[in-house]
Each structure stands twice: as structure tokens, then as C-alpha cells.
């Protein structure tokens, strides 16, 4: 009789284990509206970086600069990214960002459209210039842009000078219609993704910012086993740091001062190193005239 009792107890307890439930601490059905994000008490300085490299790469490279600016200005600084150059330009025009690292063609468009102003330009190896480099997979037989006819080509951003305008200019120079020279084209929206697209064989070729390419190779030397450069453009004025038309002159002056003085400061040099720059210098709009000329010679591009 006692065995039966014990057995019954065991069975009951086992059943009990499955049926009892702890008191819920969270009610998923009891929902309330989220609080609206409050305006921060201190307005941060907003820095935009055009999508030359991928969003993650941008954060990795520019976060030290953001932190540096924050400590120098003694106010929070926020990094704002957008997918395209055009969106970054819109942010500048609307005054939603204070300063921006933009592409050369984006500067020209912004300068001509709404008065984007040059703040400083980075200098690499004592020159404030860069190149557009045409890259192909390492085992590709192509030796020039002419050999890429009927191939798959990766553009970076629709209005990128080095990634879209310059290769289109090369095709036009060869006497072809850019719209049907390549079998297929696609946008990667950043130069590092374009490099990876070629390295992984997604595209038969791409034109990228030489600064990004050098930086990528520096970070991952094995890339040279997958890629090679078949063409390097003449030197163009480097993509500048710009301000929108709505920035206060005093802030603009302070920012310029901080950026120009960075190479005199050990902290600043560390930041410059992470960006792949030697220092910042002032630059005149005239330096971008060759680019304006090429833009003028290139047929209008559809985004």
C-alpha cells in the first residue's frame, strides 16, 4: 500500500512539475507607447562622413577623430552616416550636420548648388591629391579600360568622382557609349565594398579612391594577391572637409584651427594616423578645376 502511495506521489509531482508556472514578470500583451527621444541638453557637433568606405569602416577610422574633436571642443560630437553622397550633401544643405568629409564631385555639386565651403583638405605624403585607380581581379587578362568592354563593372556611389565619374570619362574617351560599354554595372555605395566586390570576383573591374585602396592594402596586404591595378589617373585634388552654408563663422574658424593644428599634437597625430592622413591643410576651390572640367566633359549620369 505504501509503495502505491509513493508511486502516486512521484507521478503527481512529475505532473506538477509540468503544469506549474512561475508568476510572469513581463506581460508581452501589456504594451505602452515608447517615450519620444528627448532632445539632448547639449547640442552635439555633427560630423558627416560620405560613404567612401563602408559604415563600419567609417566608424572604425573616424571614431578617434570624433573623440578628439569632442575633447578639443568640450562638447559631444556625433558621427552621422548616410548611404549616398547625395544624402550627405542634403544634410549639409539643411544644416543637419556641421562639417562633412565629402567626395570631390559631391563638393563640386554642393559648392555650385548651395554654397558648400571648403574647410580643410587632408594631406597624404605631403600632397593633397589622390587618384582614381582601375582595379581588376589578379588573374584577369585585362590591361586597360578597353579590355573591360562587355564585363561587369562595380561603381561606388552614383556621384563619386573616382568611382563613377572618372571610369565613365575613360569609357567616353575610348569613344564608347558608357550606357552599354559594360555588360552590367552595380553600385556598392562605398570604395572598400567595391574593392571586395572585385577581390571576390563579383565584378570584373572597379575604379576606386587610391587613398582607400592604399589604406585597405595597408590593413590587409594579402589583397594584392587578389587584385591588381591596371590604370592610375592623374593626380586630382583630394576629397575635402567642408562646411554647410549655415555654420556659424566662429565655429568654422575654431574647427579649422583644431584640424590644422592636429599634426602638432601627439594625440592629433595618432588620430591622423588612424585616418591614414599626414595632416590637414587649407585648400582653394581652384584646385578642383580639373575635376570640374572632366565633369563637364562627361555625359550626365543617371543615379
Amino acid at each position, binding site marked *: 500500500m505504501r509503495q502505491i502511495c509513493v508511486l502516486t506521489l512521484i507521478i503527481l509531482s512529475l505532473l506538477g512539475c509540468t503544469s506549474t508556472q512561475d*508568476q*510572469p514578470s*513581463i506581460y*508581452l500583451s*501589456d504594451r505602452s507607447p515608447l517615450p519620444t527621444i528627448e532632445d539632448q541638453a547639449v547640442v552635439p557637433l555633427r560630423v558627416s562622413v560620405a560613404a567612401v568606405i*563602408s*559604415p563600419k569602416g*567609417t566608424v572604425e577610422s573616424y571614431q578617434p577623430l570624433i573623440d578628439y574633436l569632442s575633447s578639443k571642443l568640450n562638447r559631444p560630437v556625433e558621427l552621422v552616416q548616410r548611404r549616398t553622397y547625395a544624402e550627405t550633401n542634403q544634410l549639409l544643405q539643411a544644416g543637419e550636420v556641421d562639417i562633412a568629409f565629402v567626395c570631390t564631385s559631391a563638393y563640386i555639386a554642393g559648392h555650385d548648388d548651395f554654397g558648400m565651403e571648403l574647410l580643410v583638405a587632408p594631406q597624404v605624403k605631403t600632397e593633397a591629391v589622390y587618384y582614381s585607380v582601375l582595379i581588376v581581379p589578379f588573374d584577369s587578362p585585362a590591361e586597360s579600360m578597353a579590355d573591360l568592354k562587355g564585363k561587369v563593372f562595380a561603381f561606388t556611389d552614383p556621384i563619386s568622382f573616382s568611382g563613377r565619374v572618372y571610369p565613365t570619362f575613360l569609357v567616353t574617351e575610348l569613344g564608347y557609349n558608357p550606357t552599354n560599354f559594360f555588360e552590367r554595372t552595380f553600385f556598392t555605395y562605398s570604395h572598400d565594398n567595391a574593392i571586395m566586390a572585385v577581390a571576390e570576383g563579383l565584378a570584373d573591374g572597379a575604379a576606386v579612391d587610391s587613398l582607400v585602396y592604399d589604406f585597405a592594402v595597408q590593413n590587409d596586404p594579402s589583397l594584392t594577391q587578389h587584385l591588381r591595378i591596371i590604370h592610375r589617373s592623374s593626380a586630382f585634388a583630394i576629397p575635402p572637409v567642408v562646411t554647410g552654408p549655415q555654420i556659424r563663422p566662429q565655429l568654422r574658424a575654431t574647427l579649422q584651427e583644431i584640424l590644422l593644428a592636429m599634426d602638432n599634437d601627439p594625440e592629433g597625430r595618432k588620430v591622423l594616423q588612424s585616418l591614414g592622413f599626414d595632416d590637414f591643410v587649407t585648400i582653394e576651390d581652384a584646385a578642383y578645376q580639373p575635376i570640374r572640367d572632366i565633369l563637364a566633359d562627361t555625359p550626365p549620369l543617371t543615379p
Partner: protein
Amino acid sequence: MTTREETNSNRLWAVAGGVNIRTKILGIVLALVLLLGAAVTLQVRATVSKTMNIQLEEQSVSASRDLAARATDMILINDMYSLHQLLLDTEANNSNVRYAFIVTPNNQVLAHTFGDGFPQNLLVANTVETMEHHRTVILETDEGKIWDTAVPIFDGQAGIARVGISDQQLHQTVENITTQLLITTLLVSAIGITTAALLTWVLTRPILQLVRATQAVGRGDFSHRVNRWANDEIGDLADSFNKMTVQLAHAADEHAEREQLRVRYVNGVIAAQEDERKRIARELHDSTSQTLTSLLIGLRALGDACPQPEIHTRADELRNIAARTLDDVHMLALQLRPSVLDDLGLPEALERHIADCRRHYPINLDLAVNGLESRLPPNIETALYRITQEALTNIFRHAEAETASVIVEKREDKVITIIEDDGKGFNPNQASHNNNHLGLYGIRERIELLSGTLVIESSEGHGTSLFIEIPLSPA
């Protein structure tokens, strides 16, 4: 073993012993199947639950890590539409995902899958450090357990991805498995019961047949034989049972034969005894009595003829001796075989015997005879007379009784005789083997020869009663 346990085990035996073998075997099979089924079900439930819990946790981690990886760029470039789409896809592509949401580094919800509003306390229920791989907690919610995993996005610089995996499907699966196992157990039980029923039929059929056969043997029917159904222990039992009944039948035959011989012999002895007594009694009566009577007449004549007073006196003395001897001879003849039993029947013979006894013994004696208007068969009359004679002799010799009574009554088909006394009594159970009670043995013997029954009621100090019942054969 304590007393209580003993009681319990006794009770268990009482229950187990109270049912037949068929029920026992069915019970064993059913209990085994149910026990096994229950054990397997519980084990499988536990194992499946455990395995699936682990899988849910892994699923929760992989879903949130995947979300974190894919959400990074969308968060960095503020692509809220794609981010929201990604969350909805995460929820849609995995049926276990109950919710997914993104928390900014400032600990605010950037995007979520709840649609309208956001559950209270959910945001603070789990978090993760920037350098951690992930952190999973089990949340008790109104919709059951939720495995909530937090994964830092882009080392926490873009916030935290949170995914909640619900265990509803797991519960459903476990319930389904349990149901299936229980159904299987019931099916197996049904098969088990059928098989057990068949098995018990096979097992108990020879046993039941043996039971019927032993009952027949108990009734004295040795002709019953059982079949050997199987080559097992029960088959051996059947064989040995058959052998036993053959031997029993043989022994019974022998016994009956011997009994018949004995009865015939005893009957012969009794008849010879009675005949002998009758002859001696007649001889005493006819020859010896006549001689003594002649002697008496002679002595009287001698006395009358002789004038000498001395011889006359002497002849008178001799005549008195002869007269006493004649009385003794009469008495002896009467005791040996009262001719009145043959001539006038049992009542008269008993009457005379009782009267004789009254003369010789100081005891109150009653006799009551009912329904004996017609004569009984001579052997029964003789037997009842001798039994009464023997019983009374016993009473006079041993009982030290003051009063005794004899009742003889004829019913329709039997004669009942009751002989009672108020003497010192005895223990009837010890009497049968005692030499002092050879008389009782003789009584019993006579009664059994006539297929009658004898009941002795006696205890020490409370007198003795003999109840004798003798059937009258219809002839």
C-alpha cells in the same frame, strides 16, 4: 520488518490472493506496460524538453547575432526602413522568434516588432556588456518562457540587438510527443491485455481442469483423468495427478473389498455368537432345567416319604439349593438369549431386562418405547437389545449414575435409540482408543454393520448420552 509494514504486506497479499490467476497475470502485464509507458513518456518528455531548451537558447543566440551583424550598417547610416524590415524578416523567418528589437547605446528602443507600443520592463530585462559575445536570460512572461538574448552591435557602438525566442512551439511539440507516446502505451496495453488473456487461458485451462478433477476425486470419483496440455510443470502435475487417481482408485477398490470381507466376517461372528447363545440357552432351558425340576420333584418326594425329621430337613435344604440353581440357570439362559426377544419382540425383551436390572442394581431406570407395534427385522432387534444391554452394563460398571433412561422410538424409516445417564461422564475423543471402552467399540461396530450412526455426547461430570439411529431398509 516493522509491524506496520507486515500489516501492509499482509494487506497486499490479501488483495493479491483475493483475485484469480487470470486477473493476476492481466494485472502484471497491465502494470508493466503502463509503468513502462509512463516511464518512457516522462523520460522522453524530460529529454526532449532539455534538448529543445538548449536548441532554443542556441536559436536565440544565432538569431540575435545574425540580426546584430545585419543591422550594423543600417543603424550606422540611419536606414530605419530597412532596419524595421530586417526585424520583421527576423521574426517572420523564424517561427520561434516572438520579438526582436534594437536598443541604442543610450538605452532607447530604436526599432521593434511589437507594432503598437512596447512591453513594460522588457527593455531592462536583459542587457549585455560591449565586449561580451552575448547574454541570454530566460524571461517569465504571460506567453510562457522567453529566451531573450542580447548581442552588442558593432561592439556596442551601434547599440544592442535583442531577440526573444518563445517556447510555445516547444511546449506544443512536447505535448504532441507525450500524446503520441500515451496513445502508443494504450495500444500496447490493449495488445498486452489480449496477449495476457490468451496466455492466462493457456495457463489456467489445465489448472482449472485439475481443480475439477480434484473435486471429482474428493467426491470419490476416481475415473476422472486430466489431459497433459503442455510439456511443462503443469503437464508433469497432470501426469502425476493421473497416476495418483489410478493408485487411489486401486486402493479404494482394495479397501472396499476388505471392508466387505470384514462386514461379512463380523456378521458371521455375531450370527454364530447369537446362534451359540441361543443353543446354550435352549439347552439350559430344555435339558438342564428339566433335570433340575426332576431333581426338585424327586427331593420333595424323598422328603415326604422319609419320616425321619433329620433326613426331611436335609432333603428340604437340598431342594432349596436345587431351586436356586434352577433360578440361576433361568437367569443365565435369559441373559444369553432371552427367548422372549424371539417370541414376543424387542419391547417386551427390553422390559424384562430392565426389570432384571432394577432387581440387581440400585439405580433408577426408565424405559420408553414408541411406535414398535410391529416387529422390527430380527437382526436389528438383536442389535438394539445387545446395544442396550452393553450400554447399561457400562453405566452400572463405570458411570456411578443415579438415574438412567432408555428411549426407543420408531420413525418412518429409522429407529432412534437414546440411552442417557447422569453419571460422571468421560471425554468421547479419548474413549475410542481406550481398552476400558471395548464395550463402546462393540456398540459402534454393531451400528456400522447396520449402516447406522452413533453420536456420543459426554463430558466429565455431566453424564453421557448415546444417540443411535438405524435406518430401516425399505424391504
